[in-house]
């Protein structure tokens, strides 16, 4: 005889404002199987949980239904409470009367009736719940970090520091990411390279960290604790072991005209190149698209000049297959394309640049050696206009509807860097709003205004009209209503940030989700900010949403802790909601095995007596450690021999019946 206890949560007023708790209580008391029911203001609080625990014992309850918020929120909380009271945690069901009821309905009567209906369904299901015992599975105690920017580097260092092996996969020839391209960092104005390069070196020197640069993750399968990953190491055409990084090949390469990706196209690089002098590893790659040897078969200079014979034109891509316990995604961001913002002349005038290009132009190691000059005529700019929100907070098809978060701060930084270099120059910043939420951020921006005399103009720029040697910027000061026309020497655009173009593919490969802007979705916007919905896969940095360096690093360390949490366990418990085969009615057709995406179902020969003889009969068998519990096989099964524990046919039909009553 099942004795169901039903606990109804008010969630303060979140539920009780729209759902008449008393009416639900009365209805629940009359539901078949319900032995006890109780409502409370905050069921998830300690008192609420104790209430559940105590009444389980007191009233000898053997099935529990909690009508409260989404099971995605507190199912595990209440399962733990049930377990503490000596009940198998899988005997508990949640009725979602907050997210699916009180928060989406206004009519109290209708919401109350729906809450009753949902609770009735949960009770009907709970009555059919069975005790489930999770299996155990071993953990591959190694982590994979995808993306070698500051987020990836920090995560890898933290995991390595805890004593676990980490593989760091980076698509470009060097780790460092966007941060390596920056000149100074806000709000302290310390040099980006000075704080980043030591970390890059640490990562390469760590015995626990394996760097796979110029590599891409190609395939991911498996699950938490046991991911199987294929990594493509692209052919570098240079032997990593033999190369000493002397750089002779770079100097001798006859091709000098490829655009440097690292310098944002502001300078050229040879066909054999390292992205920047402090690259880690300091081993060049040959860009086969531009290399003469690869294009025409003639040349071979680099091979001839290499003192260690490291150049290898025949090198091929290699696929590495490795296993990992946890994966951290740190793939970063890009700036949007400005092709459709013709009014800013970015595509048509060399003196209109992006913020990232400005970073390179002021950087001592940049294309101008740190001399801030106009790209067109190499002259000192006297008047520089900075335009914020180029494509940010823009819901038209040209831009992104979100705030890019970093531009207000870096624009203030750029204006100060300009004034530092040329105190007699003028800086104008067009903004919609200045957003400086962050420690020391407001003070930093005010310093630009108060100490540096940067002109902040609340308003936008309509269009830039290039005249013979100036950029005539037509704008407005919306506070005073003054129409402005500024003859600028240079314009810097704070282009919106966007997710990497490959983000959707990465998400698909990892079975994690993205938001509508292709940023990866965290499991909970507040309480699980670095986890994904896929156990064992974590996020850090701007691949999850626009972020500055301090936030990225904090998130990276948080993701590392989460990963270490997995790696430090010798065994992980499995999801016990897996498929099981009733061998007595299985016909052995194995349609289920064909369908299973995890290859968790295989054939088994069972011996049984038929006409006095022992004969073998083919049936299907589920490997419980491989089964992930999707339940797809249950539908393929013609005799109906496979069922899914925790979501059995009977249970779901009971829910349907209860709802349709």
């Amino acid at each position, binding site marked *: 005889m099942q004795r169901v206890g039903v606990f109804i949560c008010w969630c303060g007023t979140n539920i009780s404002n729209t759902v008449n708790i008393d009416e639900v209580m009365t209805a629940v008391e009359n539901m078949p199987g319900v032995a006890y029911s109780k409502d409370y203001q905050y069921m998830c609080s300690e008192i609420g949980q104790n209430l559940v625990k105590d009444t389980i014992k007191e009233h000898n309850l053997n099935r529990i239904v909690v009508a409260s918020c989404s099971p995605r929120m507190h199912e595990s909380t209440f399962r733990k409470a049930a377990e503490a009271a000596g009940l198998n945690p899988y005997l508990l069901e949640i009725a979602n009367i907050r997210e699916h009821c009180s928060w989406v309905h206004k009519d109290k009567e209708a919401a109350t009736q729906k809450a009753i209906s949902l609770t009735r369904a949960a009770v009907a299901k709970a009555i059919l719940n069975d005790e489930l015992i999770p299996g155990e599975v071993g953990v591959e105690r190694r982590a994979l970090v995808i993306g070698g920017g500051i987020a990836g580097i920090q995560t890898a260092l933290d995991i390595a520091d805890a004593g676990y092996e980490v593989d760091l996969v980076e698509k470009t020839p060097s780790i460092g990411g966007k941060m390596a391209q920056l000149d100074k960092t806000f709000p302290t104005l310390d040099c980006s390279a000075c704080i980043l390069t030591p970390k890059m070196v640490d990562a390469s020197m760590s015995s626990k960290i394996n760097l796979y640069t110029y590599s891409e993750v190609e395939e991911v399968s498996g699950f938490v604790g046991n991911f199987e990953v294929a990594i493509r190491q692209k052919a570098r055409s240079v032997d990593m072991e033999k190369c000493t990084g002397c750089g002779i090949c770079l100097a001798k390469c006859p091709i000098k005209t490829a655009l440097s990706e690292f310098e944002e196209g502001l300078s050229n690089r040879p066909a054999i190149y390292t992205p920047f002098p402090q690259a880690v590893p300091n081993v060049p790659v040959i860009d086969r698209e531009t290399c003469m040897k690869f294009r025409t078969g003639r040349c071979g200079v680099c091979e001839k000049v290499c003192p260690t014979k490291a150049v290898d034109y025949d090198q091929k891509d290699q696929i590495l297959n490795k296993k990992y316990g946890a994966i951290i995604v740190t793939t970063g961001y890009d700036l949007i394309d400005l092709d459709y913002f*013709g009014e800013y002349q970015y595509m048509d005038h060399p003196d209109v640049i992006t913020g990232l290009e400005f970073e390179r132009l002021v950087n001592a190691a940049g294309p101008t050696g740190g001399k801030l000059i106009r790209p067109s005529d190499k002259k000192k700019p006297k008047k520089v206009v900075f335009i914020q929100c180029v494509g940010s907070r823009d819901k038209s098809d040209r831009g992104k509807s979100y705030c890019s978060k970093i531009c207000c701060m870096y624009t203030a930084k750029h204006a100060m860097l300009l004034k530092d270099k040329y105190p007699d120059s003028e800086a104008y910043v067009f903004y919609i709003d200045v957003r400086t939420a962050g420690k020391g951020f407001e003070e930093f921006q005010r310093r630009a205004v108060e100490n540096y005399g940067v002109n902040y103009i609340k308003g936008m720029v309509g*269009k*830039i009209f290039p005249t013979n040697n100036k950029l005539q910027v037509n704008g407005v000061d919306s506070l005073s209503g003054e129409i402005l026309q500024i003859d600028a020497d240079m314009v810097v655009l704070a282009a919106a940030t966007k997710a990497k173009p490959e983000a959707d593919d990465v998400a698909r490969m990892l079975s994690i989700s993205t938001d509508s802007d292709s940023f990866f979705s965290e499991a909970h916007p507040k309480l699980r900010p670095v986890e994904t919905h896929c156990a064992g896969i974590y996020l850090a940095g701007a691949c999850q949403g626009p972020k500055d360096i301090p936030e990225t690093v904090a998130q990276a360390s948080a993701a590392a802790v989460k990963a270490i949490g997995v790696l430090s366990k010798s065994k992980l418990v499995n999801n016990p909601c897996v498929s099981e085969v009733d061998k007595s009615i299985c016909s052995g057709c194995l349609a289920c095995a064909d369908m299973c995406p995890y290859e968790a179902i295989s054939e088994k020969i069972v011996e049984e007596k038929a006409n006095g003889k022992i004969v073998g009969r083919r049936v299907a068998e589920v490997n419980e450690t491989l089964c992930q519990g999707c339940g797809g096989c249950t539908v393929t099964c013609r005799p109906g021999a496979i069922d899914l524990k925790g979501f059995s046919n009977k249970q779901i039909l009971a829910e349907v019946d209860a709802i349709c009553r």
Partner: protein
Amino acid sequence: MNYSYYPGCTLKTKARDLEESALNSAQALGVNLVEQEEWQCCGAVYPLASDEIATKLSSVRSLVAAHEKGEKLVTLCSACHQVIKRVNHDMKTKEDIRDKVNNYLQLKEDYQGESKVIHYLELLRDDIGFEALAKKVKVSLEGRKIAAYYGCLLLRPKEIMEFDDPERPTVLEDFLECLGANVINYPYKTECCGGYLSIDKEKVVQKMVNNIISSALEQGAKEIVTACPLCKYNLENSSLYNKEDISISYFTELLAEALDVDVKED
């Protein structure tokens, strides 16, 4: 190839040069622009109010006529082009307008925006192709410093006009280039000339057209081409306008000239 051709009011009166040069050059290119029967004035401006249906009817009549003949509908005047294209877009995408218009017109078959409306420039670019056009040029415009003036109606709104990038269009420049001209680029080419404001806001229009002409002059242009009679009128009323310094003509006039087609002088 046959096209339905919609002339519009001004091309039969003040802008006869635009029509004649276009029709004659089309003939030279083997394109037959057949004037629609009993076309009505499009209204010159697209009715922006959602509750105005009557002012869209004349455009629909032309669209339906072109649809019945199974021909693309070609326009020459920028204003007509915008009005007819936008009305067609409404018929295609806005159910309430479509229902009301069809109820009113009582056609044999409901019209649902099937016709394709193209500007003569689109015909040259997409149907004939500028490369093919370049081969037919008899008198190259080599050495002539010509600036293209788009104005507003051809380009915006871009999702409906689907004509060219509204901020950095190239179709007129590409066109001039294939006639052999020395194309002058200047940033005011997409700025509005003032349009109908010249009726009683002449001062406002003066400033607008002066900006355009001085920018073109600064970049060294000697000629400006346009596709719109009102643009031409406004530009020629600029205080900076002077036939010796800068002449303003329709793009079709240059086309006729390059193809060595006779155009009657008025």
